[in-house]
């Protein structure tokens, strides 16, 4: 997602959430994905790791 587009979408959500009275709106953050096009392969690998017992 490009910077400008993210800002538009995120600002729209943030503005709407400012009206909310029934949940802790200040504790939800609306952020841009950090891994970009890599998220899919990294996430697929992470799914494989998830099925392995932790250290």
């Amino acid at each position, binding site marked *: 997602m490009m910077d400008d587009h993210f800002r538009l979408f*995120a600002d729209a959500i943030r503005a709407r959430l400012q009206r909310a009275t029934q949940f802790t709106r200040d504790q*939800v953050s609306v*952020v841009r994905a950090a891994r970009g096009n890599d998220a899919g392969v990294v996430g697929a*690998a992470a799914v494989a790791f998830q099925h392995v017992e932790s250290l």
Partner: protein
Amino acid sequence: MLRMNTSAQAVGIDIGGSKMAIAVVNTAGDILARTTLATEAGLGFGRAIDRLSGVIEELRAHTNSSSPLAGVGIGCAGPVDPIRGLINNPYTLEGWNRCDIVTPLRERFGVPVHLENDADAAAVGECFSGAGRCFDPVVMLTSGTGGGGAVVVNGRVYRGMNGEHPELGHIPVAMDGPLCYCGIRGCLESLASGTAIGAAGKGLGLADARAVFSSVASGNIAAQSILECALGAVASAGWTLCHTISPQRLILGGAA
């Protein structure tokens, strides 16, 4: 369950309609080796398995292949059946219906193999080593050709019955909106996806969603109206998700 050590590697595969990305990833989420293949789904599922297998071996050879391979994970454009390991998507992957991708890769590499919907895999990736790391629960919305997303709770994809994932792209946001293939009018995808924005833009003589965004930037009022409709849809979806899931983070991703 297997026991993993910190030098372990896993192979991640991201299958889309036009290309397949394959990477060897370590436990920190670093990509150690990667490549991309044209999907060429119409040339046969068996051929794709052979090509993927060959590439996995090449990539492992480029990394420290003495590191144990923990497993192989696959994110694929849905519908998929993650429980049975079946790709059921002849819509964007020609001929790939009831195709078992797990068994042949498991037999070839001797490690566990798991299949996920691609949006779910992307959300897990963000939670593993991206914007969702150390946050819980996390909702991710993606906007590209289509629209969708995933819910991750305790690091795991939230699933409904039969292992199905929530179809966040089809949350209703405007009951008088365009009719969607999902069965209702005015779902998020029908108003805020790249396809939807582009389709609305065609009425103004604009080629696609990017052209709509460009026209807005140059002051086109009609294009601005299309964009505002999309933004309203996303805001409504965000509102609904925050009130139903109470996420600590709402991540926006995709190619829009």
